[in-house]
């Protein structure tokens, strides 16, 4: 780990005395139940129309040889996050101890530069209406559940993961479960060619959902209809 090329001064992977949180998503264990997505919605009072984590799927093959693959998605909490570089007002920043990429809502001017810079579509603009939280009309994203993790808890999506597909921990600690999984399995990350050093590692992710950069997230026809509906009706 430490021998990896360090390209950014804020990288904390392998830094002595520092935590570096990471998530391992073992897709062999993902049943596509959507519990993570809903638990996250509840944890943050996330409004309809936007998500901090989501679970796209793809049906591959031709009848009768057909499989269904899920690829849980969230912010990759990159070690070299393009969103941080793109933010003109330093609303987006990285926490050195832990590696969280966070957002300061009071500084965000809503310019969406970070959204454009993120190669993972992990950021979104909050709409004007929420159930009980006052923060609206600024950019929001997954925080790796900073508030829970710093209290000794796993993120909400990991907490509820039925298949235990999502595992969270300190990858700088060689005795942690995430270190064990990354060491003993073939893992992949999304869009490695972007040089972002993502910290969400996938085990057995399907090629049809992972490769070709952005095209990998192309949605099926029904989702196209959904997107047209979304564009027609959602006012953010």
């Amino acid at each position, binding site marked *: 780990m430490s021998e990896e090329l360090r390209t950014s001064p804020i990288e904390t992977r392998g830094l002595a005395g520092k935590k570096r949180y990471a998530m391992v998503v073992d897709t062999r264990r993902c049943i596509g139940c*959507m*519990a993570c997505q809903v638990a996250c919605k509840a*944890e943050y009072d996330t409004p309809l129309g936007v998500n901090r984590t989501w679970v796209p799927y793809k049906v591959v093959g031709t009848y009768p040889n057909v499989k269904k693959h899920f690829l849980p998605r969230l912010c990759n909490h990159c070690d070299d996050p393009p969103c941080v570089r793109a933010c003109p007002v330093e609303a987006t920043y990285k926490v050195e101890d832990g590696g969280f990429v966070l957002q300061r809502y009071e500084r965000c001017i809503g310019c969406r530069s970070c959204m454009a810079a993120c190669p993972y579509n992990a950021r979104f603009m909050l709409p004007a209406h929420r159930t009980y939280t006052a*923060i609206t009309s600024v950019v929001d994203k997954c925080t790796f559940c900073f508030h829970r993790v710093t209290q000794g808890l796993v993120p909400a999506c990991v*907490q*509820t993961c039925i298949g235990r597909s999502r595992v969270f921990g300190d990858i700088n600690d060689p005795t942690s479960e995430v270190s064990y999984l990354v060491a003993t399995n073939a893992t992949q990350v999304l869009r490695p060619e972007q040089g972002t050093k993502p910290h969400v590692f996938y085990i057995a992710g399907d090629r049809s959902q992972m490769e070709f950069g952005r095209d990998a997230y192309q949605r099926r*026809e029904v989702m196209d209809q959904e997107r047209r509906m979304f564009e027609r009706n*959602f006012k953010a």
Partner: protein
Amino acid sequence: MSDTKFTRRTFLKVSAGTTAAAAAAPRLLQAMENELGGKDVNPVTLAERKAIPINCHVCNIQDGAIAFVENGRVVKLEGNPEHVSTRGRLCAKGNSGMWYSYDPDRILYPLKRVGARGEGKWKRITWDEALAEVAKKLDAALKEDPNTIMMKYGRNRTGGTLDRFMKTLGSATVVNHTSVCESSKKIGMEPTWGPDIETPDFANTKYVLNIGSNILEAAYFHNPLSQRITEGRVDNQMKIVTFDVRLSNTAGFSDEWIPVFPGTDGAVALALGHVILREDLQDSEFINTWTNVTVDELKAHYKDFTPEWAAKISGVPAATIERIAREFALAKPATLFTYRGPAKHLYGSYNEKACMMLPIMTGNIETRGGYCLPRGMGWPQPGPTPPGAKHASYLSTPPDYPLAGHKVSHLVPFWIAEGKQKINVYFTYQDNAVYTNPGAQAVWGKLFRDEKLLPYIVSMSSHMGEETALADIILPDCPYLERWEPESMPNSLWPWLGIRQPVHASLGESRENRILLRDLVHKLDPDGKRGMKQYWNFKDAEDYMRQHFDNVPGLKEAGGLDFLKKHGVWPIYGKLDPKTGKVTDKTGREIKAEYGLHKKELGTADMAGAVVDKSGVISKNGKAIGIKRNGRNYAGFPTGNRLINVRVDEWAQYGFNPMPTFKRIPWHETMKEDEMILTTFKLNVHKQSRTAAVKWLAEIAHSNPAWINAQTAKRLGVKTGDLVRVESKVGHLVTKAYVTEGIQPKVIAIATAFGHWEYGRLASLRLKDKPAFGGQEDPDLNNVWWDDKGVHPNAIIPVVADPIGGSQGWMDTVVKVTRAGPNDKYGDIQGNWEKHVEAYKETMRYAYTGDMHRKMHPEMASWAGPASVKPKSGGGGH
């Protein structure tokens, strides 16, 4: 763990930049993994949220849960980490259960109908007025005949309150919903080995045959069993093979998906058994010791069920059947799971029985990694208990279905219309037959609008569902987060007792069911002179729970109800290990389940005064308590003879084949080239009818285009999104197509839970309206971005009743699918009452009293006919 208390100020300091964060953040370095749950904090203020242990009840899996409360409101739900089955995790539905309570369209005070039935005109009344009016109607009905008071419930987890109410009134007219749910699975299993469900030990198995269950999305017991399936696959290298007509998430997850023609799973199962027996791969010792047949009898019986025979019927190649049979028989341990696939057909009970034979003949019963008996726990009822009805009810024990111990509720509208039983007062509780049953609005809607057939309808409901919208009076019940209820469910290999307790006071004027029923009884019998009040002798709902739980051995010593209030569940088997997600004992090792329940030996006290008959059955006081085998006295299986009854003699009395068999659905054999089978299914984020108003779930899935195979779609000339017309013998609908490789080419599949015309503004997409019954608006509903609510298929699905198990044949409907015509509009649905009545008459011909029964059972030619069986009122309420 760090003791550092977070205040808003320290939090702001933490987020003020990387250097500041490093300085002010609590020490992050810990040798241990982060905890998997049990507490929660607000992401903005870091205030710790109050944790109240409860039992989830969005669906009926009954996971242990924790409700986190902030500012008097539940903001988060998590699995209870102390719960041995749930292990801290909840599904998408469980995570969003607070929206039952906070739904802006919840009914928060009693309502009385003022317009015509279903016109939607309501008047707010007081509880006193409401109870007085219902009591008056009950009084009049009681004078005529208590059985004219009917209770039909959907999901009843009151722990006996509804039964107590009906027994207090002296009515036997209690009808459940099980025949549209899983009844033929239960009836396939119960006479064979006792209980109505199995507990496959997925975590420790090497091979899973999953026949027609979508366990990773729905079915008993979705969350706990899904956890063990992923564990088995990755930690134990098991193989899972799924037979299904459709690529469900379970089929898509499986190592192999094997598509079958609907209703032919039973034939495949018999052929698998044939190969196992033909190649001598069975467990002969198990069969000869623990069943009521011998290996030789079984081999002779299975002789004709060849893979070639099954291949022709099911479309599964014979070579595949042979390969799977060998894999299953040689993998030890192996297990099996089934759900709606085999059971929801005309002869669903036969199908289930054929499937169940596979773990039996391979001796995978009650072994580690095998097919185990369910583990449950009970609790006593508060005394005194009411004596119950004097006369049987036709509707709850229909004489034409004597073996259907879980009733035949979906035929009830036709029986009421035929005048089989008069109803004066109809109570509905957590039910929505107008939406969920075959025929839906065309059948139950017609019944509910008919004031002659149902003169007075009382709905105990928190939501304006399709059925409640047709009621005369609505008593606002509480959603599960505001109720006290006892709970136990065999959803893992460890038995437990649990509790639901209110997370806060009931909202508005709503009252939980046991309280509103008590209030009603007190209204009927204010001074106790009628003898009713004595059975409703509790201070409040908590006191009722105390009477259930304070005297359960073991729990009593642990603290009784107080223990449950604090922990939500008893016993606590160990601690959840954050490194593995498994429950560990004091030594840090994973807890072990107990296996081989049938091999438990009877003690000397059990044997005192017991007699052993020729066949080895050990009886005491006229009841079989065990079975003598190889010189030992074993407990055996919970059946009448303590054995597994491969041959069910009771079935033969009614002219049914007592041995494992398969009957092809006659109208499937005569299908035309352009006809298809319509099947229905549930998605992972919805249950049958009560989740459409839950915004987070509706956002994920809000419409239900019809799944059509790509080749079929090509023949029809339709693409995804095109309109198709689906026509059955009772009606037609127009919906959108979803073209996929993941479905059998002769099948069109439409999910349930969509296309609501009631159930509040979100479900029916009438968001321009305002909350009408006292609820508080949710600003987030401004963000609803979808404008397609789907099309509900039930009006075009005719009734079919399994003559044995009573189950609805959901997957038996033959339809013609075409491109929609110029006059077809999306959402058109038409079901014809007269044609539904014809379908009802047709299905009654298959009952043991009907003319088709003999034709379908040539092998039972020696049966002396229905007159030979003494009329017997059907089974009780399991």
